[in-house]
């Protein structure tokens, strides 16, 4: 797929308008997984607006983001950094292929050790 098309898809799937960002950094100020991220939440918003999708798709942050949505909750401009991270992660997984989760298989995967955030994130994926 062409790079611009991926950017377009990620923007569309995240449902967020990165141009609304006023670069205050509150998302990264709040993020509990900040220190485990190579690209920080506010940078996801900035990079997607600049179309730098390659960097994002290779980022380790895709797998360290807790999907706690604190950044979404706190953003004063209604931008949703976690949704961008989520959309990039989704795109990476889709490109790998064969990794789709079926709704029916979810209950069997649940055990007490799974963080609630993971479940929330999973259902978000299934909703799309």
């Amino acid at each position, binding site marked *: 797929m062409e790079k611009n098309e991926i950017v377009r898809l990620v923007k569309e799937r995240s449902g967020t308008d990165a141009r609304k960002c006023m670069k205050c950094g509150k998302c*990264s*100020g709040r993020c509990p997984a900040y220190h485990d991220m190579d690209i920080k939440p506010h940078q996801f918003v900035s990079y997607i607006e600049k179309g730098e999708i390659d960097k994002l798709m290779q980022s380790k942050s895709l797998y360290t983001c807790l999907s706690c949505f604190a950044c979404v909750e706190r953003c*004063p401009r209604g931008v949703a950094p976690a949704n961008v991270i989520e959309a990039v992660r989704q795109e990476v997984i889709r490109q790998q292929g064969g990794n789709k989760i079926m709704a029916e298989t979810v209950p069997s995967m649940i055990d007490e050790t799974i963080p609630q955030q993971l479940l929330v994130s999973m259902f978000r994926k299934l909703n799309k």
Partner: protein
Amino acid sequence: MQKIGVFVCWCGSNIAATVDVKKVAEVLKAEPGVVISENYQYMCSENGQALIRNAIKEHGLTGVVVCSCSPRMHEATFRKTCESAGLNPYMVEIANIREQCSWIHKDIEEATEKAIILGRSAIAKLKLNAPLTSGESAVVKRALVIGGGIAGIQSALDIAEAGFEVDIVEQSPTIGGNMAKLDKTFPTLDCAACILTPKMVDCAQNEKIDIMTFSEIESVKGFVGNFKVQIRRKARFVDEKKCTGCGECMQKCPSKKGLNDFNMGLNTRPAIYIPFAQAIPNVAIIDPEQCLKIKNGKCGLCAMKCNVNAIDYTQKDEIIEREYGAIVVATGYKPISLENFNEYGYSSYKDVVTSLELERLMNAAGPSDGHLVRPSDHKEPKVITFIQCVGSRDTSGCGKPYCSKICCMYTAKHAMLIREKYPDTEVHVFYIDVRTPGKNYDEFFRRAVEQYGVDYIKGMVGKVYEENGKLMVQGSDLINNEQVVIPSDLVVLAAAIEPNPSVRNIATMVTASIDTNNFLTEAHAKLRPVESPTAGIFLSGVCQGPKDIPETVSQASACAAKVIGLLAKDKLKCNACVSHSDEMLCTGCSVCANVCPYGAITYVDKEFRLGGGKTEVRRVATVNDAVCQGCGACTVACPSGAMDLKGFSNKQIMAEVDAICKR
């Protein structure tokens, strides 16, 4: 036979770039009744107006259509032009081909077609226009200022200076407003009380100014030059005329647990109190919720101690009615409630305070006598962290979408004053942008950084939490690309400001328009910034938009100048486009009188001939021309179609619609 002149304006390129103005003039020339059709670069210019005047004289025009900008902009201009050439000013119609055409369309062909249709519609209406003359009404030479903060005080002083009487109506027990609570003022750092209290005293001593504190506007009727206002003087349970402000009652009052509003609730006050030492009027007031005598009849100590018998536990609210020629709205602001911002811990931790609370903590007349201590344990804070833009520039729905404008400067002021007075204190400021436009403003901010060593961190705070007795402020440092945590002793939030909530009610009463953020709207954002679109209503201070003290004072004086200009007139020209009732159709149902916002409609019993020598007495509506503002509410409400508006009759409007629909 009608002789109509059509004048199409280019408005430079504003219209001409999107509308083929020559074609519009050409096509409209062919309309029946049109004898001359011209186009010109700037119709509102002296040359453009001369073009119209000459055409009126040369062709003996009976009516003029100007295809130009909105009638709000230049209708009055062109009416005057025609009047000077001997044509009745109400024989002018404006076709708005700028705001409603060229500015909103891109396609030249479409825009040109629309401009022609708008022109035709104006011609159709003009053909049914009749010359109108406006009556006159007297001007009551007294102004009402709603709100006694620095804006209201300055407006009142300037109006009184010109020799007119002014009443200040203030809802709290003293004038002074928010400015009275401030410690120092930027950018010169003079003490707020030192520059404000002399003005307050001037108000009290000026014989032209009548101050009514602890009072609210109950209702407003009438129109420009002739407002009738009811004012509720709330019971303060102390006779204002007798009380000398000695303060003996405050000492004796046993019920001392009321929150001191003036100190932002940071300490307590007795049930009978004087808000602060320099209060105007310097008169006590009783909080009935807290007074033991009023609540359960047991006490009465203050009445016993009062040497002048000023205490009156049975005092009731009193409503007085006064007449005014002009009304100034100066209702000011308040910091927003921080309930939507739990991340900063304002409601959880005592040592998270707002900037206005910090003003009181630093003020010599404040709860700690000017010694900066934190509220929880009264110890001196060693690390203070400021958070800016708390609720400002917030489009998430938690705060306000606008910039509150004053916070950058007062935060720099606070940071600087603290570093000056307590040099061993560490001061950090989290900011998104530092906005300091204004004379000596950026220099002021830079001084805080360069001379006083205040640590400015570009980034927003994500959360504030407590750990080992410290307030941990966790936020972004975007320049260093780090997440930082600053253990602090005191956290200060620069809360957004919003218009005083009372302004909504007042705007409704005076029929002034208000925007989505509850700021009052100006008649023109650039050219008429201190007037409301409603004639006779003027705007002073933050009720119109966020502004600091120098700007507020400038605006308050500008507002006073407008009021003086109005009050200096003996007579005002009334609106000629008033409504009238067709007595043969009127059934006397009272619907129109009920919807009339100006109280212009009354009913009379009138005798009508039925023929055959018989008569009938019927109740019919009559309109007071001097009071009617031509809003048209009655014409819409009238069930029998008896009400009609001169200059905007039903027939004229239908003719316009027909002209638009006809191809």
